[in-house]
């Protein structure tokens, strides 16, 4: 059974949502069009929050709001395509997170052990149903159980929709290190699912 990430919920999902209309949307927002900015915000904020709920679980909402304040200030001067926009958004979020981390200690808000069994994927022969039941919160909790870099890289690749090169710039590692972290994270995630009782 092949599972498509993008079609699994039958709805628009995160990552490169605006597409071909991005340039016009950005220009309009830069000229003060509130509707265009709202579109950018709606496209980016959910991904931003999911990233932050793993990397800065105690202050995700605050950091997301702080990130948008900085992005709004720099909006008139921003130049680039949608990939650059998302990279800028997450780079800003990461810097805000680092600033917050100087004052706080990282504590994961949730772990896979806190996820109710009903939220976990179940057996292979009912995988389709499992998709319906697995919540975003539960998925984030599973990511939070990974080492920070592995979780961050997976989130930036999958949730932010960035390629390896962009992720490498954001986390300050080589592209090779990013690939290794992503692969290790996926393997570990698979292992954790096995250990949590998901029948293969």
């Amino acid at each position, binding site marked *: *059974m*092949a*599972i*498509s*990430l*993008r079609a*699994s*919920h039958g*709805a*628009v*999902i*995160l990552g490169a949502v605006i597409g071909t209309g991005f340039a016009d949307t950005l220009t309009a*927002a*830069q*000229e*003060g069009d*509130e509707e265009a*900015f709202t579109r950018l*915000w*709606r496209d980016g*904020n*959910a991904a931003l*929050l*999911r990233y932050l709920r793993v990397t800065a679980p105690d202050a995700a*909402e605050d950091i*997301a*709001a702080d990130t*948008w*304040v900085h992005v*709004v200030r720099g*909006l*008139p001067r921003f130049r680039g395509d949608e990939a650059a926009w998302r990279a800028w958004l997450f780079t800003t979020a990461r810097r805000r997170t680092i600033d917050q981390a100087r004052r706080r200690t990282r504590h994961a808000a949730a772990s896979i052990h806190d996820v109710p069994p009903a939220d976990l*994927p179940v057996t*292979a022969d009912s*995988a389709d149903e*499992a*998709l319906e039941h*697995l*919540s*975003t919160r539960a*998925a*984030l909790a*599973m*990511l939070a159980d990974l080492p920070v870099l592995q979780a961050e890289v997976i989130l930036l*690749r*999958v*949730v932010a929709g960035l390629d390896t090169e962009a992720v490498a710039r954001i986390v300050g590692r080589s592209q090779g290190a990013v*690939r290794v972290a*992503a*692969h290790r994270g*996926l*393997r*570990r*995630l*698979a*292992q954790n*699912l*096995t250990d949590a009782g*998901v029948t*293969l």
Partner: protein
Amino acid sequence: MSDRGVSDYDMPNRTWPPRNDASGIPDASLAAFLESGTPAADTPAALRHVADVLAALQAEPAADEAAGQATAIAEFRNRVGVPKQPARSRWRRPAVLTPPPLLRSRVGAAATAVVVGLGGLAAAAYAGALPASAQLVAHNTIGAPVPKQHDGGATGRHGTPVGPNASGHAAFGLCTAYVHGKEAGSEATKSVAFRALEKAAGGAANVPAYCEGVLHPGASNARHPDGRPDETVKPHPTGKPPHP
């Protein structure tokens, strides 16, 4: 994997059974999975459940993920946004405070012209070459000579300026302006008025000596017959006077 003194060859060579888990997933499968979001046909079952997790990560935004919208838009309105109905209201800035770019450049050019022109104006004022009213203002502000009836500048037949009579009463003002202009390196010393001064002095090189005689009659030529300053005299133009 060896202990001290134990050769690797002496260690038991056990074959561990492969784990029936995710550790055997090849890198190529993981890379393809990340790129496409879809596990390949031969992908281990464990990775297929990972796909479930990643799909959940990409689900539609939930209600609580839209909570900060009002704050963000308020910030946008404050920083970038334009009012939907730009009325003639308090939002309009007074033009006096922030002139448009073209006007700013013109103001800048005018200011530059005033600064450049001041050198020539001062020269004319010291030469007593301004109209009587302007000369009176110059007299009151920069100590230029009082306005005179006929020592002002002259104009040639066809409107060509010929400058003041540097041999007459204008000499004092011209020389004062010349000295100030030289000190300031002013281009004004090349003006028509100064050409008249040079003519009266018998050449540009003679102007300092000529002016010394005009400004300090009876003293300068005796002290500086060769035009050089007296090096035995140490002027203190800005320093403190020596204590007795």
